[in-house]
């Protein structure tokens, strides 16, 4: 019940927002097309995060290679 009340209240505030002003670029991109862009952003963040981890691992291996050389 709490869930529905809070969701309903949120819906009202969102509607009020939508009526009062033109949506910002952020809202447009997050809420547009049934909010599919939210999923796109989330997937992109995960790819970026795993990619960054790969870079850190790469650097670690490079440093070890340098230690091996002399």
């Amino acid at each position: 019940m709490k869930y529905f009340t809070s969701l309903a209240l949120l819906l009202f505030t969102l509607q009020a927002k939508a009526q009062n002003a033109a949506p910002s670029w952020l809202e447009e991109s997050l809420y547009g097309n049934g909010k599919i862009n939210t999923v796109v952003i989330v997937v992109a963040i995960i790819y970026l995060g795993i990619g960054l981890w790969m870079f850190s691992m790469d650097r670690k291996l490079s440093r070890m290679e340098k230690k091996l050389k002399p």
Partner: protein
Amino acid sequence: MKYWWKFLGIGLLLFASIAALRTPLSPALVHVSPDRVAPGPAVVEVLGYNTNFQKGSTVGYLENAGQRVCGSAEVIDATHLRLTLEVPAGMKDHLTTVGIDQLRYDGALFTEGLGSGIESGACGPGVNKIDLSGVAFTFPNRSILYESIRNLHFHVPMWFAMIFLMGISVVYSIRTLGSNSLEHDRASVSAAQVGLVFCALGLITGAVWARATWGAFWTNDVKLNGAAVTGLIYLAYLVLRGSVQDAHKRARLAGIYNIFAFVLLVLFLFVVPRLNAIDSLHPGNGGNGGFSDLDLDNRLRAIFYPAVLGWILLGVWMFTLKNRASKLNDQLDR
């Protein structure tokens, strides 16, 4: 086949990611205009999502306090309908449900004045004008969430992977305390480091999802703050390790701290957000239903569990890479 679990992980991630992105949402009514009605003749424009309305007209109704009035709905295009009917006086509830054929939009219309109830009319079984073929396997179409329900298969497995890795970390910590082995200590810190990567991803993806559904990147929600504090506890674990010079002393100290850290993780992520006294916006916490309420036919689960297992396997793989690299590095330094 030594690498079988790595192939399994890749396969599961491939399946879960494609299915999570390609499965259509079930048809639903998402918007009505106007959004309030008064007694008298009314024309309500109804917007559907993935509805694929067929040309012609079908049965539409208003439902207030369990009583129905019927009207006719004329299809404009695949997602637009025009519902024409006579709104009766004396509706009992403020919120009226709009129904088209088998689809319902609960609480779509608002009425100001209240009465003692309306007379119910029976709506005949109208000609089925909603084409539900070709959408055999669908995700629930929930207002506010809509397409973002797919994030369930990306955001949530981050936390499963993080908790699994922290579990590996604490197991190696306990073994460190028993064996005094620096090997176990190294495995413990490698697991915690990879776990923190997943923690960061979980926090950021959660913030984006929160912006799209709750309207803010961060709220003072017990689940959100608990997750953030858990991340900080494990950051402190790494800081603590950095501050002790002697390797054996560091291993013992970090091992003891890590056990406390895991206990706090369980408390902050599972116990505190579920206390009855606490309200939480986050699904599955503080008197708030989880997605299992939406998932009556297990369609989300069929994708979600493979996704969780896939991300856990990827996390374990990352942990073994990190651990092997650290081991080589230690040997080079010697």
